[in-house]
Structures are given as structure tokens and as C-alpha cells.
């Protein structure tokens, strides 16, 4: 490797405090990732004979200048905030919850069941009950990989992948069986779905408060997602569980020696993660559709992983990352209307962005670590140089 041949550092950079170097490196890495991703995307745009700047401007402008644009962005971001938070809380302890996908599907099932069968609950209490059932469903489904990991050592990545497959079949079964619609509109061939939920079960519209139209279905779930992010931030930074999680994630051996029950922490985190995952599907069934259809929007759990990485697993970063994701998603329509580039270009751009973000952060982290080693080495060197100036190791 090239670093072996690097010359000894004479003037080690030591003027800046550690947190600032760290923060600057993070921002630098993020900007670099954006530039690389946009540049790679530009290559594709040029192949289509369009001007990349125009295309990017079209994507960006569509979320702000078109009527209701911001509301669409926030509505798209809502489920992604929940799913990215679910991923990030597990990641604090080095756990990988790829099962957010399955947990959110099960959450939609339990929520749909509650909305249809507990409809005797009066007023807005029904909505809160439905949300509670969604969380409980996600939680129960997340408990399976958590307990399996702690009790049998089965790796959570593989078990959650398998549980995702099972969840897809569970939804298919429920829509064909226990939750299947009872009275389809006469003379119409409707797709498989549940009956419409009672009005009380739905989450009220928020968009009209800010003067947006009905179209985007921006609901009170968006502020709820923000609150969830703040709570998670508080748990991670200020509460004992957050400290324990970070200890387990950083060095499981030391954490155990420090008296932390690793299994206990892992199960608690998985349950919190599942509770958040359960809420991922609520935007589509309680705000967009008012029922659970067969062609529900899938992949939100996996997209949450991408958003969590874009937001650096920081709850506040995740809110912004989800909004960026929403802006890009909104840009699909802009591409279709204003350019010849296929709208799927946006998905490619999102993928490029995630890849570049993950890679640049990893490289920045390594660079920082190397520099720390070099700084320490340089300080030692000064001591060495004073005693034996002729023999500087290279």
C-alpha cells in the first residue's frame, strides 16, 4: 500500500480540536459523495443528449415551485423516517435489522385488523389504538430474530431476510383470507384488498393547515415521525440504554466486562426497532389509501437502510436524508414531464448516492484514523529525534 512509503510527517496538524476535524471530515465526505454521484449521473444524462444541469435543476425545482411540492416531499419522507430510525437504533449496537421490511408488513396487518375489528372504540381513540397495534405487530415480529440471536446465536441478518419472505406470504394470505374485503362494489372487478377502514381509524390531514391541497396526503404522521426522531435521539444520547447500546456496538467484550447484559440490550433495541418499523406502513394505509391493498408499496424497509446511511445513523440527519430522498422521488415526475431521460434515472441516482456516501465515509474514517496514528507517531518521533537525530525511520 501507498501509505507505507509515506514520508514521516514533520509538522503534524494539531491546531484543530478533534470534534471539529471530525465534523469537517464528515461534511467534506458528504459533499464529495454528492459531487461524485451527481457527476456519474451526469454521464448517463449526457448519453441521453440532455444537459445534466437542466435535468438536475428540473428534479430540484419540482419539489419547491410546483403546487403542493413540499407536501409531497414530506409525505414521501414520513415512512422513510420511521424505517431509517428503526434501522439506526439497532445499528448503534452493531445489529443489522434488515427485517424492517417484514416488520412493517406485519405492522400493516395488525393495524388493519385493529381498524376493522376494534371499530367500536370511539373517536380519535381508535386511531391511536390502530397505531399502537401497528407498533405491537412490528415489535412482536422483531422479537423473533432478537430472541433467536440471543438464545441460539442465529445471525440476525439471515433470520430477518427469511422473516421478510414469510411476511410477504402472510400479507398475501391475510388478504385472501381473514382480512379479505366482504362487500366489493357491485359489478366491478376490484383488486384484492381489505374493506375500507372507518374514518376514525385514519390519521387526519395536515396539509390543509399549511394551505396545501388534498393530493399529497400529508398527514399528522409526519410530525409524529419528527417526534419519534427526537425521542430516539434522546434515548441514544442521554439515556442509559443508549449508552449501553453504543458500548455494545463499540466493544462488546468491554461492555460485558462493564456489567452490561449484551443479550438484554440487543433484545430491547430490536423491540424499539420493531415498534418504529410497525409505523412505516401507516402513511400508505391510514393516510393515502384508507385500506390495505394487495399492491401496497413495498421495499420501504430496505429504502430505510439507505436513508439511515445517508443520515449517518443520526436521528436528526435521518430527517434530512429522508427529505432529500423525497425530493429525488418527486423529481421522477419532473423528468417525465420536462426531459427525455427515463424517470427511473432517479432510482439510479439514489443508488449512486448511497454507494458514494458509504464509500467516502468509510475512506474518510480510515484517513482520520491514520492521521491520528501519524500524529501520535509524529509526537513520538519528536522525542526520538531529540535523542538520535541521525536515525529517522522511514
Amino acid at each position, binding site marked *: 500500500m501507498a501509505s507505507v512509503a509515506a514520508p514521516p510527517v514533520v509538522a503534524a496538524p494539531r491546531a484543530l480540536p478533534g470534534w471539529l476535524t471530525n465534523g469537517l471530515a464528515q461534511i467534506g465526505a458528504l459533499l464529495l459523495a454528492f459531487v461524485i454521484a451527481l457527476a456519474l449521473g451526469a454521464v448517463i444524462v449526457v448519453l441521453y443528449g440532455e444537459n445534466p444541469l437542466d435535468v438536475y435543476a428540473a428534479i430540484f425545482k419540482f419539489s419547491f415551485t410546483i403546487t403542493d411540492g413540499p407536501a409531497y416531499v414530506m409525505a414521501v419522507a414520513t415512512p422513510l423516517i420511521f424505517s431509517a430510525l428503526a434501522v439506526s437504533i439497532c445499528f448503534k449496537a452493531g445489529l443489522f435489522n434488515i427485517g424492517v421490511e417484514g416488520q412493517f408488513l406485519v405492522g400493516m396487518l395488525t393495524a388493519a385488523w385493529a381498524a376493522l375489528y376494534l371499530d367500536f372504540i370511539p373517536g380519535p381513540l381508535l386511531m391511536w389504538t390502530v397505531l399502537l397495534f401497528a407498533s405491537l405487530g412490528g415489535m412482536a415480529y422483531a422479537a423473533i430474530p432478537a430472541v433467536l440471536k440471543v438464545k441460539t446465536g442465529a445471525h440476525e441478518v439471515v433470520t430477518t431476510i*427469511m422473516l421478510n419472505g414469510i411476511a410477504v406470504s402472510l400479507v398475501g394470505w391475510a388478504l385472501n383470507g381473514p382480512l379479505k374485503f366482504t362487500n366489493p362494489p357491485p359489478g366491478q372487478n376490484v383488486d384484492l384488498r381489505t374493506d375500507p377502514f372507518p374514518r376514525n381509524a385514519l390519521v387526519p390531514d395536515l396539509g390543509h393547515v399549511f394551505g396545501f391541497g388534498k393530493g399529497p396526503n400529508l398527514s399528522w404522521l409526519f410530525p409524529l415521525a419528527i417526534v419519534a426522531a427526537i425521542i430516539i435521539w434522546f434515548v441514544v444520547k442521554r439515556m442509559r440504554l443508549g449508552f449501553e447500546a453504543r458500548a455494545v456496538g463499540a466493544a462488546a467484550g468491554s461492555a460485558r466486562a462493564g456489567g452490561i447484559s449484551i443479550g438484554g440490550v440487543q433484545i430491547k433495541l430490536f423491540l424499539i426497532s420493531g415498534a418504529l418499523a410497525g409505523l412505516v406502513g401507516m402513511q400508505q394505509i391510514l393516510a393515502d389509501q384508507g385500506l390495505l391493498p394487495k399492491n401496497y408499496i413495498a421495499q420501504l424497509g430496505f429504502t430505510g437502510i439507505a436513508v439511515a446511511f445517508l443520515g449517518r445513523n443520526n436521528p436528526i440527519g435521518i430527517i434530512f436524508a429522508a427529505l432529500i430522498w423525497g425530493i429525488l422521488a418527486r423529481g421522477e415526475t419532473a423528468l417525465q414531464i420536462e426531459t427525455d431521460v427515463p424517470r427511473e434515472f432517479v432510482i439510479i441516482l439514489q443508488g449512486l448516492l448511497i454507494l458514494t456516501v458509504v464509500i467516502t465515509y468509510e475512506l474518510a474514517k480510515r484517513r482520520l484514523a491514520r492521521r491520528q496514528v501519524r500524529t501520535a507517531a509524529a509526537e513520538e518521533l519528536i522525542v526520538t529525534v531529540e535523542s538520535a537525530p541521525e536515525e529517522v525511520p522511514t
Partner: protein
Amino acid sequence: MLGDLGYAVQVAFTYYTVIYLTGLGGLFSERSGIVNIGLEGMMIIGTVTGSFGAFYFTSAVADGGLGLGQPWGPILGLLFGMACGAAFASIHALATVTFRIDHIVSGVVINLVAVGLARFLSSVFFGQATQSDPGQPHLSLIDVPLLSSIPQFGRAFENLSPVVFVGLLAVFPAVYVLYRLRWGLRLRSAGENPEATRSLGVRVAPLRWQAVLISGALAGLAGAFLSVEATGHWREGQTQGLGFISLAALILSNWNPRRLMAAAFLFGFAQAIPLTLDNWPIIRSIPPQFVNMTPYIVTIVVLAGFVGRVRPPAAAGKAYEGGST
């Protein structure tokens, strides 16, 4: 009754081929130390590019193709899907081997990107994002001599795609390469103990790159088989999680190419049951979704150690700091 069973086995052969080829791809990658949960995505790329390749190489020059006709058109189409699968897998290799990114992160991104890239390629190839044009060129189907003349059950050996035989015979070259060639020994040692491998003067990174490219090629071939041969069209979402089922079969096989055959056939048969035996009263009384779940449930049970024991390659998923050498 026996005829139905024969039909079920015939469909199971098709699923087997997809699961075995993809699982074998995963086996190469994981045996070299790179966890590959991006198999599903690599397969998706194989479906769309294979379908396009078969169209392009087969159809007449007047229609914008190369006019190679049968059987070279579909064969080159399948190979094109294979090559594109490998090319797509190079992202995973670049991220995990060269940049030493977490294998799971890279795999998740691969799967996410594949869905979008497939739509993108489809709108470039076919002018529509979610399916191919009608009239997919494919290889002519084969009846196995003798076996297909068994009364009733012989149906199992009728109308099979030639690629099914590739799937059935792939175990021989795979075992030879992995267990008889020096390259295979080195590959397996890179997955068990990369430091020891390096200390013997064997460079780990090229081995892992090759293994990931092979896994992409095999998953791409499986995908191309699925669109060109098995279903006769490309359609979004047609992989239906078969990449993950392949991963399940790989785990059940304990990362062994011979046992992978049994696991792939078992899971392939489970997929075929609700499709083919639905007029058997016992089968009809079980919701088909529960039958479809069985591969996943079996895998969880095995992983949890309730039945049997599996052991993944020791270094799989761990970043090797000498990764660039």
C-alpha cells in the same frame, strides 16, 4: 394423480435450476469470504438483460437485431445476461473487496439499485419500464429419451429447457474447480483464514474479486433463464425473492455444492406444489402462501440449531485489512 406429481417435478426442475445456479453463485462468493445478499439484485439484472439479449441476437436484421436465429440467438442472450450479472456484481466486489465496505450494506444497496436499474434498462431496451415485448425467443424444449416415456410420471421429463441440464450438471465443474484445482483450494482458504492465505504468498483480493464476479455471472444466468426460458418474458418482480430462497438453500446445504442440489430441489419443489398440485384435496386445504413460506421457515429452524448444524465460512463477512493486496 401420478401425472400431477410428474408435472410438479417438471416445474420443480425449473425452480431448481434458478435456485441452484444462484445458490452456487452465492457459494463461490461466500466460500471466498464475501457475504452476498445481493444475489436477488444480480438475478434481476440477469432477467432484463437476458431477455433483451435473446431478442437482440435472435430477431432479424430488419427488426434491428443481429439475425442469428435459433439456437444461437437465445444462447447468446443467456450469455449476455450472465455477463451483465457479472458486470453488475463488480459493484459489490469494488465495495466489499477494494473499499472494504460492510458486505451486508453493499448487498442491500445492490438489491435496491437493481430494481431501479432494471426498470431503467427496460425502458431503454423495450420502451416500457416493467415488461418486455411479446414473442420472447427461447431455446426449443427437450424431452428426455426413455424417462419421458414412463407412463404418467414421465411428464416430469418432458418440455424441459436445455438450461435445466446445465443446472443439473453444474455440480461437476463446480466440485472439480473448488476441490481439485489449486485455485479452489486458495479460494476456500481465503474464506476461512485470509491472513494465513496471504502469509503463503497468495493474494486474497483478486481471488475474492473473481469469486464475486462468478457469483454475479451465475445469478445473472439464473435470471436470464427465468425470463427467457422459464416464463418467456421479462416482467418486473418476476424473481419473487428467489434470490433469497437461493441464499436459504445455500445455508441449508452448509455451503456444499453437492448438498446444494438437494436443498435447491427441495425448495424448488416447495415452490411448485401450490402451482401444480392444487387439485389434490390435501394441498388445496393448505393456503398456498404457507407452502411458499416453507423454505424460509426451514432455514430459520436450521440456523437456530433446532435441527442439524451449519457452519458458514469462518471469515465470511469480515473485512480483511490486507484487502487491497
